[in-house]
């Protein structure tokens, strides 16, 4: 039972981090290969504030999220005007720089030894409520002017500009929102494991999250949620050692790339409308 609960908690935390990648990659078509660094920022800032400075929990969490957003602003401001491939490079560099910074400021962060003795505040209810709230915010974002404009700029940036969309501002807002979500997932992570080390937040995590979004179906939020559950749970569930995780990812990615190029869900979402179509009409109307 404990094992089950801890898997659910880890999946929930991962999901909140992946939601950030979904906003950037699924919705906006950019790549952030340093997204896990925001998780590190969230985790470390809240941990240090509470452990070293006795800051109460709520302000510590709020400050951690603000710190992650400031970092997102720092990366976003110079990069949103760059070409998409350069954005991947800059975010990758930023992520690795954060890991290096954590390693090298041992007096505050404990360096490569990590930081321990963080209070365990993340419980199952906390994670479930967090997931529901974060998911609701992302659903709202997707179905508002923000989400529509993000999808428009992903599909055709030039046409989006010609429709009056301020694409740089929109990318920046999306970056900040994603940074806040991923930062918060870092807070939950630190408060669950009670221990943080820089190596847990390198680019491999960010790449895995990007893969999860692709496996789910690039702009389907439902697909992202399903893929997160599938890909974080499957290896745990089958009790594979962690080195098998990468192999499983590779196999799944190859299968998807070969047989279902649009991801599990493609562009579809689970909504009352699609449910009715699935249950009511067995045969698709020809078009």
């Amino acid at each position, binding site marked *: 039972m404990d094992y089950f609960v801890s898997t659910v908690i880890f999946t929930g935390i991962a999901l909140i981090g992946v939601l950030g990648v979904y906003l950037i990659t699924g919705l906006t078509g950019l790549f952030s290969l340093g997204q896990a660094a925001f998780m590190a920022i969230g985790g470390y800032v809240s941990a240090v504030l509470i452990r070293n400075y006795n800051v109460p929990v709520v302000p510590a969490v709020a400050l951690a999220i603000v710190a992650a957003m400031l970092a997102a602003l720092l990366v976003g401001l110079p990069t949103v005007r760059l070409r998409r491939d350069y954005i991947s490079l800059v975010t990758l560099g930023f992520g690795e720089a954060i890991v290096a910074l954590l390693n090298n400021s041992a007096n505050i962060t404990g360096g490569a030894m990590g930081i321990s003795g963080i209070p365990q505040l993340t419980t199952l209810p906390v994670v479930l409520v967090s997931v529901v709230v974060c998911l609701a*915010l992302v659903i*709202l*974002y997707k179905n*508002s*002017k*923000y989400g*529509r*404009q993000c*999808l*428009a700029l*992903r*599909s*055709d940036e*030039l*046409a*989006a*500009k*010609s*429709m*009056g*969309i*301020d*694409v740089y501002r929109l990318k920046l*807002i999306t970056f900040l*929102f994603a940074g806040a979500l991923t930062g918060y997932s870092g807070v939950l992570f630190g408060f669950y494991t009670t221990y943080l080390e820089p190596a847990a937040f390198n680019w491999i995590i960010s790449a895995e999250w990007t893969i999860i979004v692709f496996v789910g179906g690039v*702009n389907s939020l439902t697909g992202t949620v399903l893929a997160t559950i599938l890909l974080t749970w499957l290896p745990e569930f089958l009790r594979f050692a962690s080195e098998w995780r990468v192999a499983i990812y590779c196999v799944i990615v190859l299968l998807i790339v070969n047989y279902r190029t649009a991801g599990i869900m493609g*562009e579809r979402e689970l909504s009352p409308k699609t449910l009715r179509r699935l249950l009511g009409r067995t045969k698709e109307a020809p*078009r």
Partner: protein
Amino acid sequence: MSLLEVRNLTKSFGGVRAVDDFSFGAEQGEIVGIIGPNGAGKTTAFNLITGVYPLDRGSILLEGKELAGKEQFEITRSGIGRTFQNIRLFKGLSVLENVMTAADPYSPYGLFSLFTLGAAFRRREREVRAAAMEYLALVGLEKYADEKPSNLPYGLQRKLEIARALATGPKVLLLDEPAAGLNPSEVREFIGLVGELRERFGFAVLVIEHRMEVIMTLCSRIYVLNFGKLLASGTPAEIRANHEVTEAYIGKEDASCSV
């Protein structure tokens, strides 16, 4: 003062003078045609007006205000709407959402209102949806609202491009070969549509077209470009009687026949 006044528009790509010292204008409610052989620089002129490329030289005045040097989205918001020669609809969005997206930049609500399901957000979302539906109805696409644009036939995709441009609230509407690929009855219907839209919105229309029927029926003034330069301008009757223009076109016909 003209609604739109373009002076000495000039742009080179490498050694190619795509647009060379081109001046023209449009009054409120006027439909102006731009014609010329392939590669004459017509699309480039539109791209310069809408800020896709910076100008080498020249000035673009909308109601007396300079647009040159502004960002694309600022130019659109100040009242220049456009369609694209090679259709550029948003693939991930439905037909209705394509049009909504063009109205979204004018939505004032912020993240706070969105995340608290505030009244500003809900009201504006309803307004944008209703307005987009109305634009779709104007071009006769309301029953395809939930389709993906790629499922529409070519002629309807062109109409969707127009509906989307309408949603940007243009004072000047730029149409780049809007009748390309339409059959003769669709062309006639299209001519009627542009006339109706002009009546209803009172904007000026700049239209690039190779289909002479469209240009001769709709336009009160025509500008002829050739190798980036203004070759002639005038009323449809004057252009029809102009020998240089016929030559430029016959030259092009010959070239395309000999291929």
